[in-house]
């Protein structure tokens, strides 16, 4: 493969290849996508690992994400500061997990974090309500929302503590037939 690029050292690229599910070409392509969001902020030379963070607004405006109701949560989960401002590492991480080749468990773990709006390691009723409202853009009535959330809690809460833990969530999502195909962003 041509080794003409000067953005990363060979070791860096190899390390990225080991740490994500991407090939060399894809990593470079992702770098260019990252840079295209803010060319003046992102240097072309990453060999000494500059500390560059792109603000959430730029990330959320990417075409792959801009129509996603959960884009803010996604960015928050994968960013280091929890506010949605992402470095290149976070960026690669995010798309690696959301890519086709990531295994189910890994995706389930991150999906759990995304849907856990208040970051308390449990999906509680309020998280469910927020999820539902984001999904339907607030078009359901209050009663309907409440009913759906109760049903979900009934179905998935195995230890009956009124909230979904990671195990509950994983148990439920592992049986879902289209989880892998919907929780997937192609870039």
């Amino acid at each position, binding site marked *: 493969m041509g080794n003409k690029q000067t953005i990363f050292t060979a070791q860096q690229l190899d390390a990225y290849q080991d740490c994500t599910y991407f090939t060399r070409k894809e990593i470079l392509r992702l770098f260019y996508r990252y840079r295209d969001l803010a060319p003046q902020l992102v240097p072309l030379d990453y060999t000494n690992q500059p500390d560059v963070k792109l603000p959430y607004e730029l990330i959320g405006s990417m075409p792959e994400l801009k129509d996603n109701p959960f884009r803010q949560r996604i960015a928050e989960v994968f960013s280091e500061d929890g506010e949605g401002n992402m470095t290149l590492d976070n960026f690669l991480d995010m798309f690696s997990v959301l890519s086709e080749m990531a295994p189910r468990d890994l995706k389930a773990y991150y999906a759990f974090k995304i849907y856990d709006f208040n970051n308390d390691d449990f999906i509680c009723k309020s998280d469910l309500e927020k999820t539902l409202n984001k999904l339907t853009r607030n078009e359901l009535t209050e009663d309907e929302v409440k009913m759906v959330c109760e049903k979900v809690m009934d179905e998935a809460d195995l230890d009956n503590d009124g909230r979904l833990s990671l195990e509950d969530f994983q148990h439920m999502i592992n049986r879902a037939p289209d989880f892998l195909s919907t929780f*997937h962003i192609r870039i």
Partner: protein
Amino acid sequence: MPRRSTAAEEVGIEIDEDVSDSDDGGNRRRANRKQAGGRGRGGGGAKGRGRGKKADSDEEDEEDEAPRGANRRRPANKRGGGKNNDDDSEDEAPKKKRGGAANRKKGGKAQESEEDDSDDEKGKKGKKGGKKGGKEEDNGKGKKGDVKGKDKGKDKDDDKKKKKKKKDDSSSDSNSNSDEEEESMSEGEMARLMEEVEEKKKLIANIRNKPWRMKRRLTLLKEAQQFVDKFEGALGKGKGRKWYAYKVMMTKKWIKFQRDFENFKTACIPWERKIKEVESHFGSSVASYFIFLRWMYGMNLVLFGLTFGLVVIPEVLMGLPYGSIPRKTVPRAEQDTAQDYSVLMDFNGYCKYSVLFYGYYNNQRTVGLLKFRLPLSYLMVGIGSFGYSLMVVIRTMANNADVGGGDGEEGEFTFAWKMFTSWDYLIGNAETADNKYASITTSFKESIVDEQENQKDENIHLRRFLRVLANFLITCSLGGSGYLIYFVVKRSQEFATRDDLSWYEKNELEIVMSLLGLVCPPLFETIAELEDYHPRIALKWQLGRIFALFLGNLYTFLFALFDEVNDKLEEEQAIMNASIWAMKEYYANYSRLLNDTDATPPPMNPADVIRGPCWETAVGIEFVKLTISDIQVTYLTILIGDFARAVIVRFLNYCWCWDLEAGFPSYGEFDISGNVLGLAFNQGMI
């Protein structure tokens, strides 16, 4: 941030589990070494890697250094007294590891690396081979180790380990600067260190599966690689070094080659970008139709290659040319019309007597120079294509088996799945997103209504009666379509004997079959309204019925054709007699003309020989015509049904009374299930 630390804690635990899974003994002794390493750290601070080893061995005896990390308060462990220390340090192992995790979180790279190095060094002191060692060595060597875990070189590694043991002392000496400690190391310790190296390698291979932050992964990866590197570096010295180094290099190259090949392969998949576009506009289920189509295309290509290469080409290259034997030539009576376009369209004339159809092929055992056994190859190709299709289908099914089989109980997690898996993350288009929101909302409302309705209890008897009636009607129509096909095939037989056929009559069979395929499914849908099923169940019934329709059509078609075959066989017998008779006459004439009964007449001009119908060719012709007409009908349907409809609706909408877009002939939806069934039907015909 509190959240991250929790995550780190979780992750820290995971790290521990992962590492300790591979071997417990290693853990205990590792704790041992960690203490030593800690002291090394405490003493050395920012010592380089190479130094670390020396420091460890030197400080092994010292044992009174204040530990650096919070957890390193243990009294020193003599290397000799490994066993006792192991027991003591067993408890500490988890704590140490967690401390390790905490250290890593703070980014204490230097600490980690030194610790690892000390472990590394111990590991190099030879080890009773664990097979895992082989794997990890391998992966470590190929730093670009594929996660796909190629275990090549595992055997090589075992060999190396043995070699290593032989030159234990020498490697130890070359690695560390103090000889005494190294020699006094027991085999057990060496074994443990080897296992640690294995763990490292396993970690490297699996690092992308861990839910950690990228930075942590990168750090860990670097450490693990350096650890394993040192290990290898030590091995490289001493006897047999060249061979070892060579093997290492070959493994690395091999792994790199494989990775490049994978990269290349993914670049080669046709239509990848187009499908991605479709996916972002319309969602993943529509794209799945195209993916399925692409897969079938690939499979058909292979089958075609098989047949073409092994049967047609030998025949073309080595078989007897056109016109040489009776089988291969157009009978004289037809020769005038043989090149007419219309005749060609019907696959008579030249097409009939060409490589396309079965009748062309001779029954010689071998053909041509190479004595290629053509009939045998034909048989094998037939079996081969069948076997290949079967294998491919089963393999794909097995691959997809874990990706959610459709047989899960329906009611199990309906609402939960709706909530968490209904949003398609691939959507990249505002319009589609709107549609998706709408459909999700509708779906939720439907489910809510369903839930509420489930309480109600309707008039069961009426329902049952209606359902029975609907099923009866549908069975009738299925039977009717089957009979219709049979009837038409019989009619086409009669037509074959006549010559003055209109275009409709000649193609009647194909037209009828295609029309049936078009008309019946909507008919089924309307009848199904009577049944009043839950929509999903109704859809299943509908699909099942369409499937039965298509299958029934195909089979009736086949059976009707085979009936013809029986007739044809009788005809052939009669013709054979007639042709023998004709041959005798020909000879008689010839000799009479030449007034010479002794001359052997030249073989009859093949065109003159009376020929019986070849039933295989006839059947083949029928199928080809059917396929072609099906293609034509599909194009027409798409063109008119969808495209023209869309154009009309979009433009006439301005001047029409009611809202065309929402009302009657709205835009055609992409009927996924219907199209998929069509694909399967075509494939069945093939």
